[in-house]
């Protein structure tokens, strides 16, 4: 099975799997407590007791980078899953039934799209208060439109396919047709998009962290760590470099998976 995967998919899956393992085994892989501050050992360079050095309050950067995988993976997954579920459901029904529901939903999509993404998220986060859960809620409220649009376009095509017509002539109920016949045949590009989107979610989280509305301290999260560390870039490059490296490698892993999946499922030829 794996042997038949495209090279990029195997490579990408490998990277992501490594991070998954790191996230699960974080407490056993790391030498320190990710939240323990040590004011006697701030901004220590990499090497010796600290594989990747320490940050401005003396926390072990390596430990935090590994622990951050937990948050970032969770954020990526939830930040994609929630809008995916909402968007796919709405897109499926809107595309399949058309009519008033479709028109209303598409107007809502228009409205959401016309809002600048980051600003909408910013407003929602300001409204609900900061924190990772609210960030994901904000994402879900905004990002579903991309999924809805994507799947709706495909549903419009697939619903006219003869096998869907056939399912109708067999007297199947609409939900059955939608979930058993339409959904499985429209979901592949969504999955590929979701992979790219996951990169964007992690990045958006980091951007929000830069404005200070991302995850709450002292949570170890790559974006927040980069944002915290960049102030020390001349004094202690390692504080932001290693989380940056982690985020980029995770992003590359996801992109490669997206590429590979696209190739395997023959969606476009990338």
């Amino acid at each position: 099975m794996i042997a038949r995967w495209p090279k990029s998919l195997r490579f990408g899956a490998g990277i992501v799997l490594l991070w998954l393992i790191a996230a699960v085994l974080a407490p056993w892989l790391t030498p320190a407590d990710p939240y323990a501050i040590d004011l006697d050992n701030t901004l220590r360079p990499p090497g010796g007791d600290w594989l990747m050095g320490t940050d401005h309050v003396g926390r072990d950067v390596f430990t935090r980078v590994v622990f951050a995988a937990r948050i970032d993976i969770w954020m990526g997954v939830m930040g994609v899953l929630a809008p995916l579920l909402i968007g796919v459901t709405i897109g499926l029904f809107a595309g399949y039934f058309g009519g008033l529901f479709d028109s209303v939903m598409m107007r809502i999509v228009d409205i959401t799209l016309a809002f600048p993404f980051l600003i909408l998220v910013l407003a929602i986060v300001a409204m609900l208060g900061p924190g990772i859960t609210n960030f994901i809620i904000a994402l879900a409220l905004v990002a579903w439109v991309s999924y809805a649009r994507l799947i709706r376009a495909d549903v419009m095509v697939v619903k006219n396919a003869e096998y869907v017509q056939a399912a109708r002539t067999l007297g199947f109920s609409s939900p059955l047709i939608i979930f058993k016949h339409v959904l499985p045949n429209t979901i592949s590009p969504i999955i590929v998009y979701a992979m790219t989107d996951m990169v964007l979610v992690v990045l958006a989280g980091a951007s929000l962290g830069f404005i200070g509305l991302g995850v709450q301290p002292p949570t170890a999260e790559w974006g927040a760590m980069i944002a915290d560390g960049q102030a020390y870039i001349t004094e202690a490059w390692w504080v932001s470099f290693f989380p940056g490296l982690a985020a980029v490698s995770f992003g590359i892993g996801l992109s490669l998976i997206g590429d590979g999946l696209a190739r395997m499922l023959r969606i476009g030829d990338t």
Partner: protein
Amino acid sequence: MIFTRLLICCLLIFLTTVIPKSVAGEEDEADIIRIVSLYRTQTLDPIKSVFTGSIEAFGQLYTRLLRLDENDELIPGLALRWEISADATDYTFFLRKAKFSDGSPITADDVAFTLLRMRDDPEAAYSETVEDMQNAWAIDDHTLRVRFNSANIPFLQGVETAFLGIVSRADVERRGSVDAFSDIPVSSGPYQVVEWRRNDRLILEPNPHYWRAGYPLNDGAELIEVVDVNTRIAMLQAGEVDAVRYIQNSHFAELSEDPDVVLPVEPAMRVSVLLLNHDRPPFSDKRVREAAALALDMDRITKAMLRGRGRTANTLLPEQLEFYDPDFPGWEYNPDRARQLIEEAGATGADVTINITAPDSDWEMAALIVQSYWGAIGLNVIIQKMDQALYEQRLEDGDYDSSIEWWYNDSKEPDLAVRWALCGSCGNRAYYTNYQNDRVDELVEMGTAEMDPDRRREIYREIQALAFRDVAQIPLYYFPWPNAYSTGIEGLRLRPSTQWTLEEARRVP
């Protein structure tokens, strides 16, 4: 073919961007002082905001009756001299001849108008100074009388604050209270506005009619607003600005090694504190508050946060204030006692939030340190970082457990400080902590009216001691202004009262 065309295209773009450097060269070099700051100019009406950014601008636009010398002592400003009645209710100021930026004379009537406006305008942000004022009127063009209902000692310090910058009665009445201060107000101070690009910068040029002859020493100034601290510092290092307001802990090491930058220790009349909500468990229990204070190793915190640039706070008043008690012992670090108190209060494992504003890496760092110390005595600390508006709202609503803050006083006069920070009945619920001690409130009123300096000293000493023992707030440290300056200019500093000596600044020849 298509490739060559595209390549040429890319090349052209590159050239057009790199060439300007050599063609345009340096921009015009008039002697303009540029200051970049996190803080925004929100309004140009001196009574309408107490936010730092606005105050810094007010000082440049509006002169006051008194001003400060280089040692920050009161000296004559617009008023050449003044007399105070024996019961300290009547103040008479004798004004010098001076003009507004529009060329009209500054009269005693304008000053009276300024004072009354602050007292009467419902939108006046901070009118404590003139709250008790009975009236202010011009005896003649150059003589002003101010009368209070009862003795008012702090007033003299109060007239120096930027909020009492003198505005033109004729202009305010002509344009109206709102329009007179939008865009280009009539100024009485060293500068007048060239352009106010809201959300970006305030561009100033010298006021040709400024009464201090020969000042400003420069050709103008720009107060620039930039959100990101890294950008502010990069601007200084690239020579785009002459001074940076509010650098953070993270950049001290880098900047102190930069030969073109100076990092003077500029005292500020402010104190960094941990606000505790007295209305909400667990901090409604004095034992928990005390434990929270005892749990903190203040000297370690100060050292970590200030890198040797300031002192641990030993009382709740800024050290620059008059009647500050330098001998007060402050908190000792005693985690064992703290843990014991927490257990006694049954607060072990209690959830406690610390609110901080974002994005501010220093507050985050302080919060992390406090979290670690409080965690050691059995409190479960949750840090909540939020944007300023939300933060203020929560503070005002009393919807918080604790909060890392600093506050400053506009003058050396402790009256305003205690009213603001410690007096439970003075309007702000002791800085929204809901701290209430009737004796403190009583002492505050006594302090305002007491004329004998020694007795005043006793009053404020008692206030400091009482509030400290009640753990009204936990004082952390006194910290200087974290400003950085280019070595290319001289004469510029930020006074303890948040005023620039901009008119005295100039480029080093």
